[in-house]
Protein backbone atom coordinates (compact mmCIF):
# COMPACT_ATOMS: atom_id res chain seq x y z
CA UNK A 1 0.00 0.00 0.00
CA UNK A 2 1.35 3.41 -0.95
CA UNK A 3 2.51 5.80 1.73
CA UNK A 4 0.92 9.24 1.96
CA UNK A 5 2.60 11.47 -0.66
CA UNK A 6 3.76 14.12 1.74
CA UNK A 7 5.21 11.91 4.43
CA UNK A 8 8.71 13.12 5.25
CA UNK A 9 11.67 11.42 6.83
CA UNK A 10 12.77 13.25 9.97
CA UNK A 11 15.27 10.55 10.91
CA UNK A 12 15.76 6.84 10.25
CA UNK A 13 12.97 6.09 12.71
CA UNK A 14 10.71 9.17 12.61
CA UNK A 15 8.32 10.06 9.76
CA UNK A 16 6.18 13.15 9.67
CA UNK A 17 2.92 13.96 7.93
CA UNK A 18 2.40 17.73 7.84
CA UNK A 19 -0.92 19.45 8.67
CA UNK A 20 -1.41 20.21 4.97
CA UNK A 21 -2.23 16.51 4.50
CA UNK A 22 -5.78 16.87 5.77
CA UNK A 23 -8.14 19.69 6.55
CA UNK A 24 -8.43 20.36 10.23
CA UNK A 25 -5.06 18.98 11.32
CA UNK A 26 -3.80 21.15 14.15
CA UNK A 27 -0.37 19.56 14.47
CA UNK A 28 1.77 17.22 12.37
CA UNK A 29 1.47 13.46 12.82
CA UNK A 30 4.65 11.53 13.56
CA UNK A 31 5.14 7.83 13.06
CA UNK A 32 7.97 6.03 14.79
CA UNK A 33 9.17 3.20 12.59
CA UNK A 34 12.05 2.00 10.49
CA UNK A 35 11.53 2.36 6.75
CA UNK A 36 10.57 -1.30 6.49
CA UNK A 37 8.08 -1.13 9.37
CA UNK A 38 6.61 2.02 7.87
CA UNK A 39 6.13 0.41 4.47
CA UNK A 40 4.54 -2.65 6.06
CA UNK A 41 2.17 -0.56 8.15
CA UNK A 42 -1.55 -0.76 7.43
CA UNK A 43 -2.38 2.43 5.47
CA UNK A 44 -5.38 3.01 7.74
CA UNK A 45 -2.87 4.00 10.45
CA UNK A 46 -1.99 7.12 8.44
CA UNK A 47 -5.62 8.08 8.14
CA UNK A 48 -6.35 7.41 11.80
CA UNK A 49 -3.31 9.21 13.22
CA UNK A 50 -3.99 12.28 11.08
CA UNK A 51 -7.59 12.26 12.36
CA UNK A 52 -6.15 12.35 15.87
CA UNK A 53 -4.13 15.41 14.84
CA UNK A 54 -7.42 17.30 14.35
CA UNK A 55 -8.58 16.93 17.96
CA UNK A 56 -8.81 20.14 20.02
CA UNK A 57 -5.85 20.68 22.33
CA UNK A 58 -3.56 18.12 20.71
CA UNK A 59 -0.05 19.24 21.58
CA UNK A 60 3.08 19.08 19.39
CA UNK A 61 2.31 15.92 17.46
CA UNK A 62 -0.14 13.08 17.09
CA UNK A 63 2.19 10.12 17.53
CA UNK A 64 2.15 6.50 16.44
CA UNK A 65 4.52 3.88 17.83
CA UNK A 66 6.35 1.25 15.71
CA UNK A 67 3.82 -1.47 16.53
CA UNK A 68 1.02 0.75 15.20
CA UNK A 69 -1.83 -0.89 13.35
CA UNK A 70 -5.50 -0.54 12.41
CA UNK A 71 -7.50 0.62 15.42
CA UNK A 72 -10.77 2.46 15.93
CA UNK A 73 -10.60 6.21 16.45
CA UNK A 74 -6.91 6.27 17.33
CA UNK A 75 -4.74 3.63 15.71
CA UNK A 76 -3.39 1.02 18.09
CA UNK A 77 -0.03 2.48 19.10
CA UNK A 78 -1.47 6.02 19.08
CA UNK A 79 -0.31 8.64 21.57
CA UNK A 80 -1.68 12.17 21.89
CA UNK A 81 -1.18 14.70 24.68
CA UNK A 82 -4.08 17.11 25.06
CA UNK A 83 -3.78 20.49 26.70
CA UNK A 84 -5.53 20.09 30.08
CA UNK A 85 -7.27 23.47 29.78
CA UNK A 86 -8.21 23.60 26.12
CA UNK A 87 -8.08 20.00 25.06
CA UNK A 88 -10.47 17.08 24.89
CA UNK A 89 -10.70 13.64 26.37
CA UNK A 90 -11.72 10.81 24.03
CA UNK A 91 -12.63 7.19 24.84
CA UNK A 92 -11.43 6.32 21.32
CA UNK A 93 -7.98 7.48 22.40
CA UNK A 94 -7.92 5.12 25.33
CA UNK A 95 -9.68 2.04 24.04
CA UNK A 96 -12.57 0.00 25.37
CA UNK A 97 -10.24 -2.19 27.40
CA UNK A 98 -9.20 0.50 29.85
CA UNK A 99 -5.77 -0.19 31.39
CA UNK A 100 -5.25 -3.35 29.49
CA UNK A 101 -1.66 -3.94 30.55
CA UNK A 102 1.25 -6.20 31.37
CA UNK A 103 2.68 -7.57 34.57
CA UNK A 104 6.04 -9.33 34.92
CA UNK A 105 6.82 -11.63 37.83
CA UNK A 106 10.17 -13.16 38.76
CA UNK A 107 11.05 -16.58 40.11
CA UNK A 108 14.42 -17.92 41.31
CA UNK A 109 13.81 -21.09 39.31
CA UNK A 110 15.79 -22.05 36.23
CA UNK A 111 14.61 -23.64 33.00
CA UNK A 112 15.93 -27.01 34.23
CA UNK A 113 13.92 -26.67 37.46
CA UNK A 114 10.70 -25.91 35.59
CA UNK A 115 10.97 -28.14 32.53
CA UNK A 116 9.88 -31.40 34.26
CA UNK A 117 6.87 -29.58 35.76
CA UNK A 118 5.96 -27.40 32.78
CA UNK A 119 2.77 -29.21 31.76
CA UNK A 120 1.56 -29.41 35.32
CA UNK A 121 2.22 -25.70 35.82
CA UNK A 122 0.45 -24.63 32.64
CA UNK A 123 -2.49 -26.99 33.25
CA UNK A 124 -2.91 -25.66 36.78
CA UNK A 125 -2.60 -22.05 35.67
CA UNK A 126 -5.23 -22.77 33.02
CA UNK A 127 -7.55 -24.10 35.75
CA UNK A 128 -6.88 -21.34 38.24
CA UNK A 129 -6.89 -18.31 35.95
CA UNK A 130 -10.14 -18.51 33.98
CA UNK A 131 -9.89 -17.41 30.37
CA UNK A 132 -12.19 -17.04 27.38
CA UNK A 133 -15.67 -15.77 26.59
CA UNK A 134 -17.71 -14.63 29.58
CA UNK A 135 -15.48 -16.26 32.20
CA UNK A 136 -15.92 -15.41 35.87
CA UNK A 137 -13.39 -15.29 38.69
CA UNK A 138 -13.18 -16.82 42.15
CA UNK A 139 -13.43 -13.53 44.08
CA UNK A 140 -17.08 -13.49 45.13
CA UNK A 141 -18.13 -10.01 46.18
CA UNK A 142 -21.29 -7.95 46.16
CA UNK A 143 -21.83 -5.13 43.71
CA UNK A 144 -21.27 -2.68 46.55
CA UNK A 145 -17.94 -4.23 47.44
CA UNK A 146 -17.02 -4.06 43.76
CA UNK A 147 -17.49 -0.30 43.97
CA UNK A 148 -14.72 -0.32 46.59
CA UNK A 149 -12.51 -2.33 44.25
CA UNK A 150 -12.88 0.22 41.48
CA UNK A 151 -11.99 3.04 43.83
CA UNK A 152 -9.10 1.22 45.54
CA UNK A 153 -7.65 -0.97 42.77
CA UNK A 154 -4.89 -3.41 43.68
CA UNK A 155 -4.79 -1.91 47.18
CA UNK A 156 -8.17 -3.53 47.87
CA UNK A 157 -6.76 -6.90 46.80
CA UNK A 158 -3.62 -6.70 48.92
CA UNK A 159 -5.70 -5.70 51.93
CA UNK A 160 -7.89 -8.74 51.33
CA UNK A 161 -4.96 -11.13 51.21
CA UNK A 162 -4.38 -11.27 47.45
CA UNK A 163 -0.78 -10.18 47.25
CA UNK A 164 2.05 -8.43 49.00
CA UNK A 165 2.43 -4.83 50.05
CA UNK A 166 5.51 -4.49 47.80
CA UNK A 167 3.38 -5.39 44.75
CA UNK A 168 1.68 -2.02 45.05
CA UNK A 169 4.90 -0.07 44.89
CA UNK A 170 5.80 -1.96 41.73
CA UNK A 171 2.59 -1.08 39.88
CA UNK A 172 1.96 2.12 37.93
CA UNK A 173 0.08 4.56 40.20
CA UNK A 174 0.94 2.22 43.10
CA UNK A 175 -1.93 0.03 41.95
CA UNK A 176 -4.58 2.65 42.65
CA UNK A 177 -5.13 5.77 40.62
CA UNK A 178 -6.57 8.52 42.80
CA UNK A 179 -10.02 10.01 42.37
CA UNK A 180 -11.78 7.14 40.67
CA UNK A 181 -15.44 7.82 41.31
CA UNK A 182 -17.89 4.92 41.28
CA UNK A 183 -20.87 7.31 41.28
CA UNK A 184 -19.94 8.17 37.68
CA UNK A 185 -20.28 4.56 36.64
CA UNK A 186 -23.45 2.90 35.34
CA UNK A 187 -25.08 -0.14 36.93
CA UNK A 188 -24.55 -1.92 33.62
CA UNK A 189 -20.79 -1.54 33.93
CA UNK A 190 -20.90 -2.89 37.49
CA UNK A 191 -23.10 -5.82 36.35
CA UNK A 192 -20.62 -6.73 33.64
CA UNK A 193 -17.55 -6.62 35.84
CA UNK A 194 -18.23 -7.49 39.43
CA UNK A 195 -17.76 -11.23 38.98
CA UNK A 196 -14.82 -11.03 36.56
CA UNK A 197 -11.91 -10.16 38.87
CA UNK A 198 -9.09 -12.63 38.32
CA UNK A 199 -9.95 -13.55 34.71
CA UNK A 200 -7.76 -13.18 31.65
CA UNK A 201 -10.36 -12.46 28.99
CA UNK A 202 -9.64 -13.50 25.41
CA UNK A 203 -8.22 -12.24 22.11
CA UNK A 204 -4.60 -11.25 22.63
CA UNK A 205 -4.73 -11.77 26.39
CA UNK A 206 -2.47 -14.44 27.78
CA UNK A 207 -0.35 -15.68 30.65
CA UNK A 208 3.08 -16.97 29.76
CA UNK A 209 5.98 -18.78 31.40
CA UNK A 210 9.18 -17.50 29.86
CA UNK A 211 12.90 -18.01 30.15
CA UNK A 212 15.72 -15.45 30.11
CA UNK A 213 18.55 -17.16 28.25
CA UNK A 214 22.06 -15.91 28.92
CA UNK A 215 22.51 -14.75 25.31
CA UNK A 216 19.33 -12.70 25.59
CA UNK A 217 20.49 -10.55 28.48
CA UNK A 218 21.09 -7.33 26.60
CA UNK A 219 22.05 -5.08 29.52
CA UNK A 220 23.48 -7.10 32.36
CA UNK A 221 23.57 -4.35 34.96
CA UNK A 222 19.97 -3.30 34.40
CA UNK A 223 18.82 -6.91 34.16
CA UNK A 224 20.34 -7.52 37.59
CA UNK A 225 18.65 -4.45 39.01
CA UNK A 226 15.30 -5.68 37.62
CA UNK A 227 15.87 -9.09 39.25
CA UNK A 228 17.14 -11.19 36.34
CA UNK A 229 20.20 -12.61 38.09
CA UNK A 230 20.56 -16.32 37.36
CA UNK A 231 21.22 -18.20 34.10
CA UNK A 232 18.06 -19.41 32.32
CA UNK A 233 15.86 -17.74 34.89
CA UNK A 234 12.10 -18.34 34.68
CA UNK A 235 9.67 -15.41 34.71
CA UNK A 236 5.91 -15.13 34.28
CA UNK A 237 4.40 -12.42 32.10
CA UNK A 238 0.72 -11.77 31.56
CA UNK A 239 -1.53 -9.44 29.62
CA UNK A 240 -5.12 -8.57 30.50
CA UNK A 241 -7.39 -5.66 31.24
CA UNK A 242 -10.49 -4.34 32.94
CA UNK A 243 -12.82 -6.93 31.37
CA UNK A 244 -16.50 -6.22 30.75
CA UNK A 245 -16.46 -3.44 33.30
CA UNK A 246 -13.98 -1.24 31.46
CA UNK A 247 -15.59 -2.04 28.11
CA UNK A 248 -18.96 -0.83 29.37
CA UNK A 249 -17.53 2.36 30.91
CA UNK A 250 -16.02 3.28 27.56
CA UNK A 251 -19.20 2.35 25.68
CA UNK A 252 -21.36 4.43 28.05
CA UNK A 253 -19.27 7.57 27.68
CA UNK A 254 -18.80 7.17 23.95
CA UNK A 255 -22.56 7.63 23.73
CA UNK A 256 -22.65 10.50 26.21
CA UNK A 257 -19.99 12.33 24.21
CA UNK A 258 -21.75 11.72 20.89
CA UNK A 259 -24.81 13.48 22.27
CA UNK A 260 -23.05 16.61 23.53
CA UNK A 261 -19.93 16.90 21.43
CA UNK A 262 -21.25 18.93 18.55
CA UNK A 263 -24.48 20.37 19.93
CA UNK A 264 -23.06 21.61 23.23
CA UNK A 265 -19.35 22.05 22.55
CA UNK A 266 -19.11 22.53 18.79
CA UNK A 267 -16.48 19.84 18.39
CA UNK A 268 -16.33 18.32 14.91
CA UNK A 269 -14.56 15.02 14.37
CA UNK A 270 -13.69 12.87 11.38
CA UNK A 271 -14.60 9.49 12.87
CA UNK A 272 -17.44 8.93 15.34
CA UNK A 273 -15.13 6.69 17.30
CA UNK A 274 -13.17 9.87 18.17
CA UNK A 275 -16.18 11.22 20.08
CA UNK A 276 -14.78 13.71 22.57
CA UNK A 277 -15.71 16.22 25.23
CA UNK A 278 -13.64 19.06 26.61
CA UNK A 279 -11.51 17.66 29.45
CA UNK A 280 -12.65 20.63 31.51
CA UNK A 281 -16.40 19.97 31.16
CA UNK A 282 -18.89 18.07 33.33
CA UNK A 283 -19.00 15.20 30.82
CA UNK A 284 -15.22 15.12 30.36
CA UNK A 285 -14.59 15.11 34.08
CA UNK A 286 -17.20 12.42 34.68
CA UNK A 287 -15.59 10.16 32.10
CA UNK A 288 -12.13 10.81 33.53
CA UNK A 289 -13.34 9.72 37.02
CA UNK A 290 -15.17 6.70 35.60
CA UNK A 291 -12.23 5.72 33.39
CA UNK A 292 -10.02 5.78 36.48
CA UNK A 293 -12.37 3.14 37.89
CA UNK A 294 -11.51 1.05 34.82
CA UNK A 295 -7.81 1.60 35.51
CA UNK A 296 -8.28 0.38 39.06
CA UNK A 297 -10.38 -2.65 38.07
CA UNK A 298 -7.58 -3.69 35.76
CA UNK A 299 -4.90 -3.30 38.45
CA UNK A 300 -7.13 -5.39 40.76
CA UNK A 301 -7.60 -8.01 38.06
CA UNK A 302 -3.86 -8.40 37.51
CA UNK A 303 -3.25 -8.39 41.26
CA UNK A 304 -5.63 -11.32 41.83
CA UNK A 305 -4.16 -13.19 38.86
CA UNK A 306 -0.69 -12.69 40.34
CA UNK A 307 -1.98 -14.18 43.60
CA UNK A 308 -3.22 -17.25 41.71
CA UNK A 309 0.10 -17.62 39.87
CA UNK A 310 1.96 -17.57 43.18
CA UNK A 311 -0.42 -20.21 44.57
CA UNK A 312 0.10 -22.47 41.57
CA UNK A 313 3.91 -22.26 41.62
CA UNK A 314 3.92 -22.74 45.37
CA UNK A 315 1.71 -25.83 45.07
CA UNK A 316 3.74 -27.41 42.29
CA UNK A 317 7.13 -26.82 43.89
CA UNK A 318 6.07 -27.27 47.52
CA UNK A 319 7.72 -23.99 48.49
CA UNK A 320 6.28 -20.65 49.50
CA UNK A 321 6.04 -17.90 46.86
CA UNK A 322 8.47 -15.86 48.98
CA UNK A 323 10.95 -18.74 48.92
CA UNK A 324 10.50 -19.00 45.15
CA UNK A 325 11.41 -15.31 44.86
CA UNK A 326 8.12 -14.45 43.15
CA UNK A 327 8.53 -10.70 43.27
CA UNK A 328 7.04 -8.42 40.68
CA UNK A 329 9.29 -6.50 38.33
CA UNK A 330 6.56 -4.04 37.40
CA UNK A 331 3.03 -3.58 36.04
CA UNK A 332 2.43 -1.27 33.08
CA UNK A 333 -0.78 0.10 31.61
CA UNK A 334 -1.50 0.27 27.87
CA UNK A 335 -4.86 1.93 27.42
CA UNK A 336 -5.13 5.06 29.52
CA UNK A 337 -5.33 8.82 29.61
CA UNK A 338 -3.29 10.31 32.42
CA UNK A 339 -2.76 13.83 33.60
CA UNK A 340 0.99 14.42 33.47
CA UNK A 341 3.38 17.35 33.38
CA UNK A 342 5.64 17.65 30.37
CA UNK A 343 8.00 20.26 29.06
CA UNK A 344 6.60 21.90 25.91
CA UNK A 345 8.58 24.69 24.24
CA UNK A 346 10.51 25.32 27.45
CA UNK A 347 7.42 25.47 29.68
CA UNK A 348 6.02 22.83 32.00
CA UNK A 349 2.48 22.06 30.92
CA UNK A 350 -0.29 19.96 32.30
CA UNK A 351 -1.27 17.46 29.61
CA UNK A 352 -3.79 14.68 29.38
CA UNK A 353 -1.68 12.00 27.70
CA UNK A 354 -3.80 9.48 25.80
CA UNK A 355 -1.98 6.21 25.21
CA UNK A 356 -3.88 3.64 23.22
CA UNK A 357 -1.92 0.44 22.82
CA UNK A 358 1.17 2.30 23.95
CA UNK A 359 3.24 2.01 27.11
CA UNK A 360 4.30 4.80 29.41
CA UNK A 361 8.11 4.74 29.54
CA UNK A 362 9.33 7.24 32.11
CA UNK A 363 13.04 8.02 32.01
CA UNK A 364 15.49 8.19 34.91
CA UNK A 365 14.77 10.54 37.84
CA UNK A 366 11.15 11.12 36.91
CA UNK A 367 8.58 11.53 39.61
CA UNK A 368 6.19 8.61 40.08
CA UNK A 369 8.92 6.02 39.69
CA UNK A 370 9.39 3.56 42.58
CA UNK A 371 12.50 4.44 44.62
CA UNK A 372 14.36 1.34 43.46
CA UNK A 373 14.05 2.32 39.77
CA UNK A 374 14.42 6.07 40.17
CA UNK A 375 18.01 6.18 38.96
CA UNK A 376 17.55 3.98 35.92
CA UNK A 377 14.04 4.63 34.63
CA UNK A 378 10.78 2.69 34.40
CA UNK A 379 10.72 -0.99 33.48
CA UNK A 380 8.75 -1.40 30.25
CA UNK A 381 7.21 -4.81 29.62
CA UNK A 382 6.41 -5.64 26.01
CA UNK A 383 4.78 -8.88 24.97
CA UNK A 384 5.40 -10.39 21.57
CA UNK A 385 3.37 -13.11 19.89
CA UNK A 386 3.08 -16.45 21.70
CA UNK A 387 5.50 -18.05 19.27
CA UNK A 388 8.35 -15.57 19.29
CA UNK A 389 9.39 -13.71 22.40
CA UNK A 390 8.87 -10.74 24.67
CA UNK A 391 10.99 -7.97 26.08
CA UNK A 392 11.84 -6.07 29.21
CA UNK A 393 13.03 -2.57 28.39
CA UNK A 394 13.66 0.59 30.31
CA UNK A 395 12.44 4.15 29.80
CA UNK A 396 15.02 6.70 28.67
CA UNK A 397 15.65 10.43 28.86
CA UNK A 398 15.02 10.52 25.10
CA UNK A 399 11.41 9.62 25.79
CA UNK A 400 10.55 13.31 26.09
CA UNK A 401 9.90 13.32 22.32
CA UNK A 402 6.93 10.96 22.73
CA UNK A 403 5.70 12.21 26.10
CA UNK A 404 7.60 9.23 27.49
CA UNK A 405 5.69 6.60 25.56
CA UNK A 406 6.81 3.57 23.61
CA UNK A 407 5.43 0.49 21.87
CA UNK A 408 3.18 -2.02 23.66
CA UNK A 409 3.57 -5.21 21.64
CA UNK A 410 4.65 -6.40 18.25
CA UNK A 411 1.47 -5.23 16.54
CA UNK A 412 -0.68 -7.28 14.22
CA UNK A 413 -0.24 -7.44 10.47
CA UNK A 414 -3.05 -9.82 9.60
CA UNK A 415 -6.75 -9.83 10.39
CA UNK A 416 -8.15 -12.42 12.78
CA UNK A 417 -10.55 -13.55 10.07
CA UNK A 418 -7.66 -14.27 7.70
CA UNK A 419 -5.49 -15.91 10.36
CA UNK A 420 -8.19 -18.40 11.32
CA UNK A 421 -8.40 -19.48 7.68
CA UNK A 422 -4.64 -20.06 7.50
CA UNK A 423 -4.07 -21.98 10.73
CA UNK A 424 -5.83 -24.60 12.81
CA UNK A 425 -5.59 -24.30 16.58
CA UNK A 426 -5.04 -27.99 17.39
CA UNK A 427 -2.29 -28.35 14.83
CA UNK A 428 -0.63 -25.13 15.92
CA UNK A 429 -0.66 -26.37 19.51
CA UNK A 430 1.11 -29.61 18.48
CA UNK A 431 3.67 -27.75 16.40
CA UNK A 432 4.40 -25.35 19.23
CA UNK A 433 4.77 -28.22 21.65
CA UNK A 434 7.36 -29.77 19.32
CA UNK A 435 9.25 -26.48 19.54
CA UNK A 436 9.15 -26.52 23.34
CA UNK A 437 6.16 -24.25 23.97
CA UNK A 438 3.26 -25.90 25.81
CA UNK A 439 -0.04 -24.06 25.25
CA UNK A 440 -3.49 -24.42 26.76
CA UNK A 441 -6.31 -22.42 25.25
CA UNK A 442 -9.95 -21.63 25.91
CA UNK A 443 -10.55 -21.48 22.15
CA UNK A 444 -8.92 -23.35 19.26
CA UNK A 445 -9.82 -20.74 16.69
CA UNK A 446 -8.76 -18.03 19.15
CA UNK A 447 -5.37 -19.76 19.28
CA UNK A 448 -5.12 -19.88 15.49
CA UNK A 449 -5.88 -16.15 15.32
CA UNK A 450 -2.88 -15.49 17.55
CA UNK A 451 -0.38 -17.42 15.38
CA UNK A 452 3.07 -15.81 15.30
CA UNK A 453 3.02 -14.80 11.62
CA UNK A 454 -0.14 -12.70 12.23
CA UNK A 455 2.16 -10.29 14.05
CA UNK A 456 5.02 -8.00 13.09
CA UNK A 457 8.60 -8.97 13.88
CA UNK A 458 8.92 -8.13 17.57
CA UNK A 459 12.69 -7.74 17.32
CA UNK A 460 12.32 -5.13 14.59
CA UNK A 461 9.67 -3.21 16.54
CA UNK A 462 11.75 -3.17 19.71
CA UNK A 463 14.92 -2.24 17.84
CA UNK A 464 13.05 0.71 16.32
CA UNK A 465 12.08 2.02 19.76
CA UNK A 466 15.71 1.78 20.87
CA UNK A 467 17.02 3.39 17.69
CA UNK A 468 14.56 6.25 18.15
CA UNK A 469 15.71 6.63 21.74
CA UNK A 470 12.31 6.16 23.40
CA UNK A 471 13.15 2.93 25.27
CA UNK A 472 16.15 0.65 25.65
CA UNK A 473 16.41 -3.15 25.62
CA UNK A 474 17.29 -5.01 28.80
CA UNK A 475 16.23 -8.67 28.38
CA UNK A 476 14.53 -10.74 25.71
CA UNK A 477 12.40 -13.60 26.98
CA UNK A 478 11.47 -16.82 25.18
CA UNK A 479 8.06 -18.46 25.80
CA UNK A 480 7.91 -22.04 27.07
CA UNK A 481 4.38 -22.25 28.46
CA UNK A 482 1.27 -20.28 27.60
CA UNK A 483 -2.33 -19.96 28.74
CA UNK A 484 -4.30 -18.35 25.95
CA UNK A 485 -7.57 -16.53 26.49
Amino acid sequence: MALPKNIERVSDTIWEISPSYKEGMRVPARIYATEKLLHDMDHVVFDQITNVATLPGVTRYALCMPDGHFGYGFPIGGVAAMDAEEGVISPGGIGFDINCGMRLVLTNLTYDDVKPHLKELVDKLYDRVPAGVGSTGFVRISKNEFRQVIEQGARWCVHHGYGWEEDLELTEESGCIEEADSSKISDKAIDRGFNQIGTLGSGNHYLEIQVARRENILDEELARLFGITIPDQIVVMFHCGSRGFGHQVATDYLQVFLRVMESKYGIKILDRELASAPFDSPEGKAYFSAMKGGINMSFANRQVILHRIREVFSGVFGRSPEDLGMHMVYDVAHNTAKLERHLVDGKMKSLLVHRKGATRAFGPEMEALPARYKKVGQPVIIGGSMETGSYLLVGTAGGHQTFYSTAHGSGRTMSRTKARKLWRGQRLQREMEDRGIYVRTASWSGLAEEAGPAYKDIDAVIAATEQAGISKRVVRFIPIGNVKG
Partner: protein
Amino acid sequence: MPFEFLEDIATADIAFRAWGKDLEETFTAAADATMNVMVEELESIDPREKKELRLENDHLDMLLFDLLQELIYYKDAEELLLRVRQIEIQEKDRLHVLKGVASGEKIDRNRHRFRVDVKAVTLHLFRLEKTENGWETLVILDI
Protein backbone atom coordinates in the same frame (compact mmCIF):
# COMPACT_ATOMS: atom_id res chain seq x y z
CA MET B 1 -26.06 -16.89 6.85
CA PRO B 2 -26.89 -13.31 5.90
CA PHE B 3 -23.54 -12.07 7.18
CA GLU B 4 -19.85 -12.41 6.37
CA PHE B 5 -16.64 -11.70 8.24
CA LEU B 6 -14.25 -9.42 6.39
CA GLU B 7 -10.57 -10.26 5.95
CA ASP B 8 -9.30 -6.91 4.85
CA ILE B 9 -10.80 -4.58 7.40
CA ALA B 10 -9.43 -4.41 10.94
CA THR B 11 -6.55 -6.51 12.24
CA ALA B 12 -6.81 -6.97 16.00
CA ASP B 13 -10.59 -6.62 15.83
CA ILE B 14 -13.27 -8.31 13.74
CA ALA B 15 -15.30 -6.68 10.99
CA PHE B 16 -18.48 -8.08 9.49
CA ARG B 17 -21.09 -7.18 6.93
CA ALA B 18 -24.70 -8.22 7.55
CA TRP B 19 -27.78 -7.76 5.39
CA GLY B 20 -31.47 -8.45 5.05
CA LYS B 21 -34.55 -7.52 3.04
CA ASP B 22 -35.74 -5.24 5.82
CA LEU B 23 -34.46 -3.68 9.02
CA GLU B 24 -35.67 -6.57 11.15
CA GLU B 25 -33.76 -9.14 9.12
CA THR B 26 -30.65 -6.99 9.03
CA PHE B 27 -30.65 -6.39 12.77
CA THR B 28 -31.19 -10.10 13.41
CA ALA B 29 -28.32 -11.01 11.08
CA ALA B 30 -26.01 -8.50 12.77
CA ALA B 31 -26.94 -9.91 16.18
CA ASP B 32 -26.12 -13.43 14.97
CA ALA B 33 -22.83 -12.25 13.46
CA THR B 34 -21.85 -10.71 16.80
CA MET B 35 -22.76 -13.89 18.68
CA ASN B 36 -20.95 -15.99 16.06
CA VAL B 37 -17.71 -14.13 16.85
CA MET B 38 -17.99 -15.58 20.35
CA VAL B 39 -19.69 -18.93 19.73
CA GLU B 40 -18.63 -21.16 16.82
CA GLU B 41 -21.99 -22.86 16.26
CA LEU B 42 -25.02 -20.65 16.72
CA GLU B 43 -27.23 -23.75 16.60
CA SER B 44 -25.62 -24.90 19.85
CA ILE B 45 -27.43 -22.09 21.68
CA ASP B 46 -30.72 -23.56 22.90
CA PRO B 47 -33.65 -21.21 23.55
CA ARG B 48 -34.02 -21.93 27.27
CA GLU B 49 -34.29 -18.39 28.63
CA LYS B 50 -36.10 -15.42 27.18
CA LYS B 51 -35.27 -11.73 27.35
CA GLU B 52 -37.69 -9.05 26.27
CA LEU B 53 -35.98 -6.38 24.20
CA ARG B 54 -37.13 -2.80 24.22
CA LEU B 55 -34.70 -0.20 22.95
CA GLU B 56 -35.08 3.27 21.56
CA ASN B 57 -32.75 5.76 19.97
CA ASP B 58 -32.94 8.99 17.96
CA HIS B 59 -30.70 7.43 15.34
CA LEU B 60 -31.51 4.23 13.51
CA ASP B 61 -27.90 3.07 13.29
CA MET B 62 -27.41 3.69 17.00
CA LEU B 63 -30.45 1.53 17.65
CA LEU B 64 -28.52 -1.32 16.04
CA PHE B 65 -25.49 -0.37 18.15
CA ASP B 66 -27.73 -0.59 21.25
CA LEU B 67 -29.04 -4.02 20.26
CA LEU B 68 -25.55 -5.47 19.77
CA GLN B 69 -24.38 -3.92 23.03
CA GLU B 70 -27.36 -5.50 24.77
CA LEU B 71 -26.20 -8.96 23.71
CA ILE B 72 -22.66 -8.23 24.92
CA TYR B 73 -24.08 -6.98 28.21
CA TYR B 74 -26.08 -10.17 28.88
CA LYS B 75 -23.06 -12.33 27.96
CA ASP B 76 -21.04 -10.76 30.80
CA ALA B 77 -23.70 -9.79 33.33
CA GLU B 78 -25.75 -12.99 33.21
CA GLU B 79 -23.44 -15.33 31.26
CA LEU B 80 -26.26 -15.59 28.75
CA LEU B 81 -25.76 -16.31 25.06
CA LEU B 82 -28.69 -14.87 23.15
CA ARG B 83 -30.12 -14.93 19.66
CA VAL B 84 -32.74 -12.51 18.45
CA ARG B 85 -35.87 -14.55 17.68
CA GLN B 86 -38.37 -11.88 16.84
CA ILE B 87 -38.21 -8.10 16.50
CA GLU B 88 -40.16 -5.18 15.24
CA ILE B 89 -38.67 -1.77 14.50
CA GLN B 90 -40.85 1.31 14.26
CA GLU B 91 -40.43 5.04 14.11
CA LYS B 92 -42.56 7.09 16.48
CA ASP B 93 -42.22 10.84 16.89
CA ARG B 94 -38.76 10.75 15.29
CA LEU B 95 -37.71 8.08 17.79
CA HIS B 96 -36.70 4.64 16.55
CA VAL B 97 -38.13 1.92 18.74
CA LEU B 98 -37.16 -1.74 18.78
CA LYS B 99 -39.36 -4.31 20.47
CA GLY B 100 -38.76 -8.01 20.47
CA VAL B 101 -37.60 -11.17 22.08
CA ALA B 102 -34.19 -12.77 22.33
CA SER B 103 -33.67 -16.22 23.74
CA GLY B 104 -30.77 -18.43 24.56
CA GLU B 105 -29.02 -20.06 27.46
CA LYS B 106 -26.22 -19.78 30.00
CA ILE B 107 -22.65 -20.42 28.90
CA ASP B 108 -21.96 -24.13 29.01
CA ARG B 109 -18.29 -24.85 28.36
CA ASN B 110 -19.05 -28.50 27.65
CA ARG B 111 -21.46 -27.77 24.83
CA HIS B 112 -20.56 -24.36 23.44
CA ARG B 113 -17.36 -23.99 21.46
CA PHE B 114 -15.94 -20.52 21.84
CA ARG B 115 -14.00 -18.30 19.48
CA VAL B 116 -13.09 -14.89 20.99
CA ASP B 117 -14.80 -12.53 23.39
CA VAL B 118 -16.35 -9.32 22.09
CA LYS B 119 -15.48 -6.30 24.21
CA ALA B 120 -17.59 -3.70 22.46
CA VAL B 121 -19.19 -2.43 19.26
CA THR B 122 -16.97 0.27 17.78
CA LEU B 123 -18.20 3.18 15.70
CA HIS B 124 -15.21 3.16 13.38
CA LEU B 125 -16.62 2.80 9.82
CA PHE B 126 -19.91 1.74 11.42
CA ARG B 127 -22.80 2.09 8.98
CA LEU B 128 -26.33 1.00 8.32
CA GLU B 129 -27.56 1.70 4.81
CA LYS B 130 -30.54 1.13 2.60
CA THR B 131 -29.62 -0.85 -0.48
CA GLU B 132 -31.48 -1.90 -3.62
CA ASN B 133 -32.54 -5.13 -1.98
CA GLY B 134 -33.05 -4.01 1.59
CA TRP B 135 -30.57 -2.98 4.24
CA GLU B 136 -26.92 -3.60 4.96
CA THR B 137 -24.59 -2.87 7.85
CA LEU B 138 -20.85 -2.84 8.46
CA VAL B 139 -19.65 -3.31 12.01
CA ILE B 140 -16.22 -3.57 13.63
CA LEU B 141 -16.24 -5.32 16.99
CA ASP B 142 -13.50 -4.69 19.50
CA ILE B 143 -11.84 -7.97 20.49
